[in-house]
């Protein structure tokens, strides 16, 4: 443990030589453990799965406490009415902003931001290490910020808290570095699943945005953690979906055109929202250090001013999303709410106030979606359905455009509303918004934020889009047909004479392949009769075979020690499709570069 960033709790863990033997033999409370060594003896894989469940339970409870704390703070500071009294609206976010800024600057610097990038950084930079202090800081500062009316959400902080809890447990259990790296995403999925009451979306988000892999070991633990976390959360806060939506049926196929329009508008607006944050965040961060103590307060004051006219734009706004889903607002007012929320959320986020972007994104999406739906319904009542399904689709669409997680966004809408029938419009709309956002904004939001924080975290989106070179991209046709095992050495010498290949491939009736260089061939010819069949001289030789659809990266592992490898058809290994050599692979990579 020579890492200077060693966490306090890990440093204080008992060292092996000091405490383990004595405790195991002397401590009455632990003696039975040593007497029954077979009990609780788990392989690291199994331990990891058990740990995932424990992490899920801890995260679920942490999120329950987090959400309740936010509500208690809101009740205490802003009162129980949805539209708080004007004086409180003006003063509370600003006043609490000062406190939050002080806490972040002085004690919990890791609590700044949403939490998604910090979790990614933990995985890729800090070997899965998330300080437990960050969990406490995130809990405190986000509860205060969101409870006081800052326009932020509890989901991303929950994700980071889950990662922090998982990381602390992993360190305590002295897991290997690989497992520790993996444990932060496991906790992240648990935190997000509980915050959203949406385990599938949480799993997908973590895979889509944080780890970018579907490996079985990671997936098993992530799913277990997400499910146990969601179960715990539901047992305390109820299992109802986050939003209740009226039943939806696609009335006419032409409705899909209306949803496509929503996709275009949401794509453009999500792009604008990203640009605003991307532009102002570094500008405010570059201001002198002392201003960071006041930025959340100033943002709070401005949000208060907006809140005087549009109180719906403060806080998480879940109740208002629910109202939009029940056609409670006119399309004009929905549009106002959407733009007001873009303003207040931008203020909160760029000022460095800790809190998440998920809830505001859903809010903006619902309002914009509802507004577009209302507008379309106004002009084309026969084509467009009521406002509610548009608000519903809008949530997912804006989320897809802003967060750039197209698959998660679809499942998130289904899970948070319990409405499966909406999936078709969501898919169409989300895809359009995602493509627009991707075309005009090269880097996804979280990757952009990481870059602004001088971190080069891997972009899952870029990895998904990377060109994967296959064997078929590098292989070439041999200039002579392969030799048969029944051919004689004389025949082989003839073929070698006519061929430019350095290595001659020999095919056996069983589908086995062998290779021999010219030098080998001449050596064999010198030691054997010309009528000797190749199968006699190549009885033990065997070449690995490749298939055209295999990744070129994988081919590299097989080609070690061979000058050339046969590429055969999957329909029968006797059919030669081409040959592949190391220079062929390098040429293919150079072409792509």
């Amino acid at each position, binding site marked *: 443990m020579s890492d200077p960033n060693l966490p306090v709790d890990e440093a204080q863990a*008992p060292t092996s030589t000091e405490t383990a033997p004595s405790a195991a033999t002397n401590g009455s409370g632990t003696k039975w453990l040593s007497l029954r060594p077979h009990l609780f003896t788990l392989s690291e894989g199994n331990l990891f799965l058990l740990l995932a469940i424990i992490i899920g339970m801890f995260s679920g409870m942490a999120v329950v406490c987090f959400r309740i704390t936010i509500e208690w703070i809101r009740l205490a500071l802003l009162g129980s009415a949805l539209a708080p009294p004007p004086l409180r609206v003006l003063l509370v976010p600003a006043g609490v902003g000062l406190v939050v800024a002080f806490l972040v600057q002085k004690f919990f610097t890791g609590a700044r931001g949403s939490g998604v990038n910090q979790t990614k950084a933990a995985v890729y930079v800090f070997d899965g290490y998330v300080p437990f202090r960050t969990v406490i800081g995130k809990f405190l500062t986000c509860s205060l910020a969101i409870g006081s009316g800052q326009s932020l959400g509890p989901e991303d902080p929950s994700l980071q808290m889950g990662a922090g809890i998982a990381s602390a447990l992993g360190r305590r259990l002295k897991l290997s570095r690989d497992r520790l790296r993996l444990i932060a995403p496991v906790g992240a999925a648990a935190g997000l699943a509980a915050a959203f009451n949406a385990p599938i979306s949480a799993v997908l988000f973590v895979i889509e945005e944080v780890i970018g892999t579907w490996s079985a070991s990671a997936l098993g633990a992530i799913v277990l953690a997400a499910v146990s976390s969601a179960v715990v959360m539901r047992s305390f806060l109820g299992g109802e979906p986050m939003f209740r939506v009226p039943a939806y049926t696609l009335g006419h196929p032409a409705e899909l055109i209306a949803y496509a329009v929503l996709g275009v508008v949401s794509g453009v607006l999500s792009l604008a929202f990203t640009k605003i944050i991307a532009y102002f965040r570094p500008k405010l961060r570059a201001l002198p250090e002392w201003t960071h103590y006041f930025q959340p307060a100033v943002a709070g004051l401005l949000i208060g001013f907006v809140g005087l006219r549009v109180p719906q734009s403060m806080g998480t706004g879940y109740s208002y999303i629910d*109202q939009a889903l029940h056609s409670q607002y006119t399309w004009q007012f929905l549009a106002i709410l959407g733009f007001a929320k873009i303003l207040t959320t931008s203020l909160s986020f760029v000022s460095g106030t800790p809190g998440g972007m998920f809830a505001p994104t859903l809010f903006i999406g619902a309002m914009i979606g509802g507004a577009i739906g209302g507008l379309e319904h106004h002009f084309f009542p026969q084509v467009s359905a009521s406002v509610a399904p548009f608000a519903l689709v809008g949530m997912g669409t804006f989320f897809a455009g802003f967060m750039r997680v197209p698959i998660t966004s679809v499942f998130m809408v289904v899970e948070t509303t319990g409405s499966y029938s909406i999936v078709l419009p969501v898919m169409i709309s989300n895809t359009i918004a995602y493509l627009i956002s991707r075309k005009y904004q090269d880097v996804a939001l979280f990757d952009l934020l990481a870059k602004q924080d001088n971190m080069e975290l891997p972009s899952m989106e870029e990895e998904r889009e990377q060109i994967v070179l296959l064997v078929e991209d590098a292989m070439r046709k041999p200039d002579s047909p392969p030799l048969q095992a029944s051919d004689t050495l004389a025949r082989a010498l003839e073929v070698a004479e006519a061929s430019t290949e350095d290595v001659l491939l020999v095919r056996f009736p069983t589908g086995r392949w062998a290779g021999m260089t010219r030098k080998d061939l001449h050596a064999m010819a010198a030691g054997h009769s010309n009528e000797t069949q190749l199968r006699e001289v190549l009885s033990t030789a065997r070449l690995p075979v490749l298939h055209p659809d295999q990744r070129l990266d994988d081919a590299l592992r097989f080609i070690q020690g061979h000058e050339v490898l046969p590429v055969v058809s999957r329909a029968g290994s006797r059919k030669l499709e081409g040959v592949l050599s190391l220079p062929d692979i390098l040429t293919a990579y150079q072409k792509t570069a």
Partner: protein
Amino acid sequence: MTSETENIVSRYVQRRVLLSSLLFLVMFFVITAALARSYHAREESLVLEWFQKGNAELANGKPALAIEDFRNSLSYGPENSQVQLRLAEALLADGRFTEARSYLVNLWERAPGSGEVNLDLAHVSMQTGDVDQTTRYYRAAILASWEKEPALQRRKVRLELCEFLLAHRMTNEAQAEIAGLAADTPTGDGILLEENGRLFLRGGEPSKALAEFEAALRINPRQSQWLGDAGQVAFEDGDYLKAEAYFSKSDRENPNPEIHASLLLVREILGNDPFLAGLSDDEQARRSLRDFDLGLQRLRSCAASGNAGLSPGQSQSEFQLLNKDAQDMQKRVTLRSLSRDPDLRNEALELVSRIEDAAARGCGPGTGLDQALKLIAKRHEGNNP
């Protein structure tokens, strides 16, 4: 340290951490449960607090304020159907039908058999002018379950439905609903029977209406209002004898100028109707002659007034033609001829009817005897006694 020792130590640490984690998990569970319970209690109290506020605002006729209160209440108990229903009702009261409908449809999906929800949906559909939906929701509300006083609630809904159907001139459907309503009415409740009678009357079924009023009067024969209603129905049905009986009884029980005027009119009719059952030919002739003379006087006085009141489209020639017909008939009409010739009595009354119609259009509706003559003529219109 050997790998064996490392392994033992590692396992020891794992067990210890796992056990302490489980212990901590239990403690955390207890704390979270306590926190959640206290929060839920607070939520419930807030739901109730805002709900009561909203109810008070709604009762004070301030639906806009009530909407805010119910929304506040819903933010702490989003699944509370009672609050959702009241919010929908407040929205309805505030004229925000689309918003109300959204909540109600949501409630309906969860409880399609709720009488209140169906009734509110009927109100929303009525406001949006969807007659079919309105009728459907009303009928569903009649069949649906009601928590309090189901029979009374169903009757109220049926009454509303009848009113709605009558207002939309859907007479056949209305008559069917009124019949259903009457069938379900307990026989001992005079007020409800009278209510049925009024509906039958409005539905164009005076005989059924009279039956309901008479059923009500069997319970309380001295109820002057019901007597008046029964008299009115009998009057409109042309049963002047019955009408006279009810009006006079009502007038005795509780003198009322309107009833009294009706009574006098009925008596005029009964005293001048030549075709009243049981009259001799001579009496019929006398009455016919008197009616003819009265008609003639009406024609002359109306013509003498200068026909200032000629209605649009009414020409001077109409009066001239009537006058000519009257003069022609006057030559034929004698007590003797009328006594011998029932057709002539009929012809005379028909002419009186035409005169009264023309005079009513040209000189305003007749009163007293003229009104009685018009009603007598109308009663025997097309009849050949």
